[in-house]
């Protein structure tokens, strides 16, 4: 696990229906570390005796002495976002990870296209700030449900004057990715963050236009989903654990006192990859790290977001 620290909630602000911005400062006598554009932190909380770990992109400027995140309350919240929205107060202390960057900026490009969908705007905002500061050539495409959800729209418009494009679902507007990717100069990079469907549509349009993977950058964090109860055996530690239907495999391993490596807890970074010794049931792979071939090999699993459908899973940990 990455290094942990305490932060103090200094400000909570409502941005849009169901979206709040939180500002964190260091406890007295301490300083927050600087971070690079695209970084996120993982907030750790314990609700009703169960641990929760939620990753959020830092949207402030790396030079600020504080950290800022924006949180959308999930309609079906396991507790993490509901807690942030309803229970957290200014002055509270939170346990968080140090910043981690899985979505860093490639600085060698000639041009950049930033694409945000909904609350996926948060890392895009930090990239736009950095690109504006470095006077890089970039444009921003931002799709939301309806005008009131256009959070940080004014700031993005200021950062990319004349090159800020919005798409309102309520007005049946959608970005035309095929057109967007069809005629960009060599050396263009795309950064996309948003709902899975939008990311897939964006990346697929880029691939169809012949873009190489090295120029297509995306980030999405997944929450572990509920599933069937199953048994996991940690072969090296000789521990047998029951993973409840509402607990992730990683949380169950940690509750049993094991300390498997992990970073993002959202199926993106690959740190928690575990070797499967055997499994007598079906895998439910939900990460975006393993390749399709690795997923179907039944040899690897990412415990943070993936699980199995009942039965027994034996891991080499």
């Amino acid at each position, binding site marked *: 696990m990455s290094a942990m620290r305490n932060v103090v909630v200094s400000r909570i602000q409502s941005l849009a229906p169901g979206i709040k911005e939180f500002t964190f400062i260091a406890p007295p006598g301490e300083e927050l570390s600087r971070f690079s554009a695209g970084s996120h932190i993982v907030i750790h909380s314990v609700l009703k005796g169960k641990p929760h770990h939620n990753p959020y992109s830092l949207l402030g400027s790396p030079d600020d002495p504080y950290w800022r995140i924006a949180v959308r309350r999930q309609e079906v919240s396991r507790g993490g976002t509901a807690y942030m929205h309803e229970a957290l107060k200014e002055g509270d202390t939170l346990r968080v990870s140090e910043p981690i960057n899985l979505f860093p900026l490639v600085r060698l490009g*000639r041009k950049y296209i930033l694409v945000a969908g909904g609350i996926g705007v948060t890392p895009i905002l930090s990239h736009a700030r950095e690109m504006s500061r470095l006077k890089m050539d970039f444009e921003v495409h931002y799709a939301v449900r309806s005008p009131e959800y256009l959070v940080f729209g004014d700031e993005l418009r200021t950062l990319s004057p004349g090159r800020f494009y919005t798409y309102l679902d309520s007005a049946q507007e959608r970005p035309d990715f095929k057109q967007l990717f069809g005629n960009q100069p060599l*050396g263009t*990079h795309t950064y996309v963050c948003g709902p899975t469907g939008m990311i897939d549509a964006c990346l697929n349009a880029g691939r169809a*236009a*012949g873009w190489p993977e090295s120029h297509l950058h995306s980030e999405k964090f997944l929450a572990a989903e509920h599933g069937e109860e199953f048994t996991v055996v940690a072969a090296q530690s000789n521990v047998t654990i029951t993973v409840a239907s509402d607990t992730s495999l990683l949380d169950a391993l940690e509750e049993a006192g094991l300390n498997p490596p992990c970073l993002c807890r959202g199926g993106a970074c690959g740190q928690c990859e575990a070797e499967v010794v055997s499994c007598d049931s079906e895998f439910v792979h939900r990460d975006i790290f393993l390749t399709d071939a690795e997923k179907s090999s039944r040899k690897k699993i990412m415990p943070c977001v993936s699980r199995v459908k009942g039965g027994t899973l034996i891991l080499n940990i």
Partner: protein
Amino acid sequence: MSAYTYRVRSQPDYPILKWDASGARHLLVILDLDTTSIADLCDSACPGPLEILLRGEATHPALVRFSKENVLIHSFASMDSLIAALENALDQATMGLRLYALGHEDGLWKCNKAGQKVGMSRDEIQLAQASTTGRPVYCVHCGQHMNLIHTNITLCAGCKRHLLVRDHFSRLLGAYMGFQIDAECPGFIPAVEEVFP
């Protein structure tokens, strides 16, 4: 000549060119005509529109197949005019292009530099060595750049030092590093051998 088995990490490894089907358009730069290498590439049809920039005459028999497929072939008399045309083509090109270069190392890395200049990444460029293993050499003492060096030791065209041609390669300079061989024992120059035919 003794074969080199020791490799330093910076030394480039040149695989055989293969058309990259993930690209939408393809640009092939042929620096030296070498029939066997082109044959490897031509075993399969190019998966998309192809243009060729060629140093030399387009009448070479190795190019007959491309002529039959109505591939546009641009001929250049000199390396400088070819690289200038390449830079111009890349500046105008759009995402989806794949660049392939075939020939001696000096030219390959000039093509790579032209690609990097417009922000192309490693997975958009393929380089394949053909016709000679003669090396581009950079003198670390005076900065002189030399090309097609076939021997283990060479005289610097700039500062006239005797240079050992190392395997240490700079992608930025597109050349192998040349160090003075007799810095510690002035005048002691080991036998000069042709090791890069």
